[in-house]
Every structure is written in structure tokens, then in C-alpha cells.
């Protein structure tokens, strides 16, 4: 029988599966989630009809995956943020190898730029190379970098002069002069404090609050909202639900987070509702928004 004959076409058509069970879609979802990206051709061992294939892609899209080139993948932004969750500082050059399903370097650069612009990550220099750090990392401001640069220049000038061979005898530097130069550097001390050395104990509440705000920074989407049950689940292994809910309310009182009432029409499951703090009249607070310091400082600004 020839390859294109009606008999062969009919048998091929028979092999195609017209619909996938939801459990199969769940399996595929797990695979994509675990691998980060899976080539479309390897998504499903069964051959699907066009309709079934379209439905599969639709339901994967509904579960938050995206199709890019020949891959179905976890959005690059999510992958990068998950990576930052595990390793707070990642060399930029190694990023492409760490995440799956990148179609082009330009695309990756665009996503990185978006993540940085949204405040979810920060671009830092370490050993002369670009690194991506978590959004919660404490970094120097531009003004502080300016000061650092000026201090560096002065130190370098002193050091060069001290090592000059043209002098009569080996030169040194007065300690008080060095102290004066370094006195321009109070932020250095602050930076050290903010690194939270292991010896310094934080109160439980402070630690929980910090964890909550950090997790919110990692999990927030492009609209700057975080689904509270997702945040609670992300931290549940480290803190108990009760502690998380208490810390959420503390963060709201301290104007670090804004807790927002549920506005869905029947979208919140009872399991998710149980992971949300309550507001006035028992209203469920199911979303959180990080309040950035600049936003709270603006306070009564008029438009």
C-alpha cells in the first residue's frame, strides 16, 4: 500500500486522539512545570486531532504557560523569579543555561529588563561581571555609588602617591587623612548593617515580616498584586499558617503591604479562603500589594 493511499491516511486518522482527560493535562502541566519548557512535539506521546491539540494549548495557557517558538514553557519571568528565589544572586551570563525554553537572546534581554524595571530584580556588579539579584536585595543607590566612586578616586590618588618611587624615602598616609576620606562613607556602615550578620539576632516578628515582604516581592505579578493563598503556601513550610497571617496583618499595619478584599465572584475556593486574613466585617483579604517606600512617602501628593 502506497504511503499516501487512502488506507494509510485512514489508519493515521484513527490513531489521533480526539480529547485528553483532565488528568493527562495535569500530567503535562507537571512535566512542563518541572522542566520549565517542553518542545511542543514532545508534550504528549499520543497524536492529537487538531481540535484536541488546540484545546490542550488553550488549557495550558489557562494554567499560566505560554507558547514560544517550538516550546510550551513556564513564562521566562516566572522561571527567573523562581531561580532568584533559590539563589539570590545569579551571574547574568549563566542565566540562559539555567532557564528553559529561551527562543532568542533578545527575548531574554527584554524579559530581564522588564523584571528589573518592575523592581522584582536588581542588576548588580560582582567581580566585574553583571549579576541579577533578588528584588529584596539591599543595594547602593546611585548617589551612594557616586560617593563610592569619589572615595575610590581619592584613595587611589593617595595610594599612588604613597607608592611613588620618586620620593626621597618611602611615603605613608596619615591615619587622620584616611579617616577623613572614609568619613564620607557612612552608607558603607549602613550597608553592613543591612546585610544582617549571622550573629545579630532578629526578633521572630521582624524576621517573619521580612520573609513575608520578600516573598511578596518575588511573587507579585506585573500588576503588582500577590495572591495571598499563594504567598501563604510559599512560606507554609518555614512558618505556620497562623504566623504568616499574623505577619501579614502586621505588615499591613506597618504600611509595608496593602491587603485587599476579595473581589472575585465565586472564584475563591474555601481552601484558599482559609489561607487569607480577614478584614472589616469578616471580609476575606485575598490579595496583597507591596507598598514601596516612595509610594508611601508621596502620601498627600495631589495630581
Amino acid at each position, binding site marked *: 500500500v502506497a504511503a499516501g493511499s487512502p488506507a494509510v491516511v485512514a489508519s493515521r486518522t484513527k490513531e489521533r486522539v480526539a480529547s485528553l482527560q483532565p488528568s493527562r493535562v495535569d500530567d503535562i502541566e507537571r512535566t512542563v512545570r518541572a522542566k520549565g519548557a517542553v518542545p511542543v512535539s514532545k508534550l504528549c506521546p499520543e497524536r492529537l486531532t487538531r481540535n484536541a491539540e488546540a484545546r490542550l494549548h488553550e488549557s495550558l*495557557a489557562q494554567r499560566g504557560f505560554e507558547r514560544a517558538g517550538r516550546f510550551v514553557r513556564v513564562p521566562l519571568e516566572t522561571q527567573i523569579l523562581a531561580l532568584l528565589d533559590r539563589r539570590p544572586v545569579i551571574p547574568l551570563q549563566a542565566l540562559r543555561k539555567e532557564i528553559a525554553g529561551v527562543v532568542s537572546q533578545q527575548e531574554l534581554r527584554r524579559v530581564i529588563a522588564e523584571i528589573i524595571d518592575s523592581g522584582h530584580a536588581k542588576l548588580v556588579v560582582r567581580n566585574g561581571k553583571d549579576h541579577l539579584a533578588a528584588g529584596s536585595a539591599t543595594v547602593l543607590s546611585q548617589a551612594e555609588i557616586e560617593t563610592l566612586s569619589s572615595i575610590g578616586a581619592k584613595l587611589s590618588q593617595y595610594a599612588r602617591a604613597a607608592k611613588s618611587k620618586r620620593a626621597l624615602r618611602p611615603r605613608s598616609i596619615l591615619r587622620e587623612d584616611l579617616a577623613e576620606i572614609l568619613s564620607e562613607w557612612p552608607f558603607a556602615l549602613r550597608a553592613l548593617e543591612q546585610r544582617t550578620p549571622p550573629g545579630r539576632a532578629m526578633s521572630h516578628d521582624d524576621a517573619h515580616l521580612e520573609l513575608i515582604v520578600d516573598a511578596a516581592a518575588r511573587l507579585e*505579578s506585573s*500588576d503588582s498584586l500577590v495572591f495571598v493563598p499563594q504567598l501563604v503556601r510559599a512560606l507554609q513550610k518555614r512558618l505556620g499558617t497562623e504566623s504568616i497571617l499574623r505577619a501579614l496583618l502586621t505588615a499591613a499595619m506597618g504600611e509595608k503591604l*496593602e491587603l485587599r478584599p*476579595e473581589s472575585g465572584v465565586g*472564584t475563591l475556593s474555601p481552601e484558599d479562603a482559609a489561607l487569607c486574613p480577614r*478584614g472589616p*466585617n469578616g471580609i476575606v483579604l485575598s490579595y496583597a500589594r507591596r507598598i514601596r517606600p516612595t509610594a508611601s512617602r508621596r502620601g498627600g*501628593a495631589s495630581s
Partner: protein
Amino acid sequence: MSSPFDREHADAWASDFVDVESLNARTTETILRSIDAIRDTSRRDPDDLRSRSVLVLGPAGAGKTHLFARLRKKCGPRAAFVLMRPEISSDPTPRHVLAACVDALQRRPMGGDERQLDIVILSALALLEGQGVKWPNAFLDELRSAPKDEREELLSRAVEGIADRYPEVNLPWLEKFLALPVAAAPDRRAALTWLSGREPDSTQLERLGLQEPLPDTSVLPALRTLAIIAAYSTPIVVVFDQLENLIDDEGGAGRIHAHARLIAELFDSVRGLVLVQMALDAEWVQRIRPAFSASERSRLEAHVEALELPTPAARAALVEAWIGRLPPDERRGAPWPFSTTEWQSWMNAPGVTPRMLMIACREASRRPEGAIDEVAACLPGSAQEKETPDEREDRLREIWEERRALTRTDLAAAQDDGRPIDAERLASGLGAALKLVHGVRVEPKRTRQPQDLRIMGAGRDTDVFVIQHGHPRSACAALQRAKSAAGDRAVLALRESARPFPPTWHRAGELLKELSSQSNATWSEVQPAEVVDLLAVHDLLSLARSQDLTGRDGAPLPEELVHLWAKSSLEIEAWPTIAAAISRASVVSEAPVRTSSPPSPSPPEERRPSTPPSSPRLKEGSGAAEKKLEAGLSATVLMKLRLASVDRVVRETRVQDPKATRASVLKDLRALGQRIRWLGRAIVVWNGGSR
């Protein structure tokens, strides 16, 4: 004068309202910057002119509609605001946007006397003539006093100038548009109908020297032209509000994609618009966003703004501003209307929206003097059911009457402007009402389908054609389409009774006769009162989805409760058009008790009632009498009420049987098992099902 605490739902078109500027300042700033950027770019660098898109998300009561009113107030005549809300049974199209834009431009801006339309045109003309945009009125006087030839020369020079800068403009549309300020009133009305993409009647077309309404292929170019002209002085801000109404209860994403296509099309191919989308945050995140493709998301979520909830300082400012609106003799010193403890709680409670705070103020202000410290009901933490089911029913009835009154006003205004009701709006009203009829599914209009709605009942499907056309040719074409469809399935064709076919439309009359003679077809003329009801029920359901309906205690009325109330109280199945529609669709009107027997195989004509179906408030037929014997008097009372509080059932039962007690009524109700459904402990709903 009503209390400032009573205005928990902002009026998008209000001119006098309380505004605390620090609230949502960032979002306001973002949109104002977008408007300014468009105006500047259109003047400085027309080649770079693009549309901008901002998505605003927030919970119910966070101030989305208030934001619209604030932006209108802040911009005054410097921007034109268009408010669009999704129709329940039709997909949004560029034609709807064009009509809404032209309608919006006919409003007078806040604090201005001239219509925005004139400002837009005159500013553009003045700018092109090198006179600057600041004095459009002076330019109008100059234009009106100029001889006709000179005027025409100026207009054609302007058309050429604009076409030079923006080759994509639609010249015939532009010519008619620029001539509006100097047109005589009847010419202006005719031109506006045509320019808005609606169908002018034959006299209007004759007056305009045209043969047909604006064709589909010209709608987007017309919109492009309008946006470009307006961008000079009055950029158009199209606000798509209540987008949660795009969500289909049956899980389809068709309407969401239709909206995404529309926004993407406007964003990509129309220059100079500010597109603002507003939705409930949870609905957007959980049910709308997942349906988008990456390319749709990049356009619809080009800039996302989450509305901020009031900080303690903003809460204090809000309360102070509301109190400032009270008559001087009613005002008290801080922390009135709260006690000190209550105020501390409200200041620091998380998740407080302006609406929640306003309702708490209202409750607190209405307490008797001296009761402040004893009453804990106004504390944020006290989750008490303050409103009884009877009060909720009364509240829903009150809201319904409010919606009807607003719709009547709206229709009267449209009639004054000579605008008929758009067919899509009428179809949406009908679709919304039909959604409340048991056993009916409604499929909205899809592109390339001739019908405006498809009703899918227990028997065969019915296609609905809304024949609101103003021109005999298009009315005939629609009647012809309805006639052809009647060959395959049941058809319901309808038109407002206030707009009958003129006697001169002979062909339309003949076609109507032919259509009516077909056994499958029904012709219905919708009475003005029913039009009001249809449009009001659409608004009611939209507001319920957006959680904008609140009880007297301020708690949002659940969508399900609103649906149940509407089903049981509005007697929708008895509305003549609905009755005609469901009899055509072979829907068995909701019976008091469902039987398990399959639907009768007899043809629908035999089952079609000659009179409108009975009201859902049940008449005691033989079946009902049997059930009464079986399940007791309370069951019969509930069957009549459909949805009621236990208290009410007890009360009604006692009217007929004074010996009945609460315990006996409860016992009877519990014995009904699955025939009833309990909403909490206090409300009970008749399901109509048998055990």
C-alpha cells in the same frame, strides 16, 4: 438634600462630588500624563503619535468610577471621556466605539458651555490656520460670519492639511465632520447619525447626499480620523469599565477574546487614543488574564495600575471631606460619627475601601445620640448580619426601581437627541432577561451570523432579529434575513413599537407580512415600558457582577441572590417579548415542581400558549394542590414566594393558618429536602425539583 454618606456608588457623570486627591493619585497622574503626551505628540511630532493603554485594577468600592469622574473634572474641555461597559449579549466592535465616541463628544465638558465636538473641530481648524487652539469660540464666530465660499475654501484647506499630515484619514468622513460647527441643526443631526456609524433614515441620507450608512470597511478609518483630529486639543479617553462582565458564566472565552481583539485593533491601528480598562482585580487575574495570548497581554496590559486603598491619613481626609458636605448644624467634632475606639479600628483595619468607610460612617451617623459607646456594630471586626432577608428584598426592589428610573431618563435624553436605541443594546437587554428564564441558554451575536441572538431552549433554537433600522433598504435586508432563517428554525423579529415602519416603506410592509405568515416566525413590537425593563435588567445584572449593588448595611449583594430575586420577583416570563421568545424556543415555563418525565414530543406550536405564560408566582393548579397536601401550607407559600426569609414564610403561613408556629413551618420546610435550597439559615429558595 441627600447625605454625603448615601453616595456609595459614584456617578461617572457627576459634576459635584467629594474628592480626596491623595487617593489614587498615582493612577490619576498616569492617565493625565498619557493624555498630555498624546496632545503634545500630535502637535510636535505627528509621525510618532500612538495610542496608549492603561489597565486599572481594584476591588469593588475602591474608586474606579470615581476615578473616571475625577479625570473628567480635572481635564475639563482638554479631553473627551467615553465610558463603555460590556453588553451582556453582544461582542464589542469598533462601530460601538465610534458611536460611543461621537455621543461622548456631544456632551458639554465639566465647566464648559460649548459641546466638546465643536471644541475638537474648531481647535483643529484654528491650529491648522496657525491661530493656536486657545480661542476656538472666536474662531467659530469668524467662521460663521465668513461668506460661504470662503468657509468652504477653509474647510477644504483643512481637509488637505490633515490628509497631508495623516494619510490614513477617511476623507469623506473628515469633510462631514469638519463641517459640523457651521451646519444647520437638521443637517447636523443627520451628519452626526451617519458619522457615529448609525443608520440615518432616508430623509437624513438625502439631506447628506448619500446612499447608504457608513459601511463596515469605513468604521475603523473613521475612528482613526476622529482620534487624530481630537488629539490636537481634546484627546479621546475611552474607558472600558466593568470588564468582569465579559466573563461568560458557561466558561467560554469568546467575549474576552472579542474584547482583546478590539483593544489590540484600537491600540495598533488607531493613533491618539487613551485606552483605559477597568476591572475587578480578582476577576481579571483569575478569569480574564488567563484567556489572553502573549500578544494580547502585551497590548492590554501595556501599563497596569492597581488602585491603592486609602491609607489612615487618606481615610481621615475622606471622613472629613464627607462631613464637610453635611449641613453645618448636623456636623460634629472628630471623631464623629465614630466613637474613639471605633475610629481607631477603622483607621487601622486592613482592606478598607472608600465605600466600606462611607457605609460605616452612614451607619454610625444614624445611631441615636448617646448610643455611640455601647454600640459595637460599627466596629470593623464585628461580622453581624445586620440586614434581614425581607429588608434585602425591599432593597433589591428599590434598586430595581432606581435602575428603571435611570433608564427612562437615559432613553428620554437619547430621544431628545434624535438617537434611537441601538439594536445591540436592545438585544443585550433581551439576552440578559432571557438568562433569568429557567432552561434557556442565550448565544450572543457572532460575526458573520445574521441573527442578533440565538435562544437555545429545551426544544428547538430560536433566532432573534432586532430590526431597529432607520432606512427601508437595510430594514428590508434584515427582514429578508429573518425570513430566510425562518425556513430552518424558529424566528423572533422585533422592533420598538415607538418606531413603527413608516407607511411609505411598502417593501418592508410586504416582507413583514410574508414573515408573519410563516409558521416559524413571530413579529413583536416592544412597548416602551418593556424596553425600559429590558435595559434595566441588563444594568441590574451587570452591576451585580461588578459587586456594585449593596444592601442597606453596605454589604455587596451576591450575584446569585440578585439573580434569584430577579427570577422570582420580576415575572420576566410574563413580559410579552420574553413570552414570545420562550414560546418560540419551546421552553417550558418554569413549573412549580419539575417532573421527571421527558419533555413532550409534541410540536412547539401545540404547546405554545395563546396568552403570555403565567407569572412565576404560582397559580394553584392541580399539581400545586397535590403538593400542598403533601408538603404542607408552608411549602405552598414558599412555592409562591420562590425566595423568602423564614420569617416571611412564617408570617405568610400564619395569614392562612393562624395556628402555624415557627417550629411547624421549619419542620415543613426541612421535610421538603432538595426541593428547596437554604442560603444560610435565614433564606430559603424554592428549587422546583422533586426529591
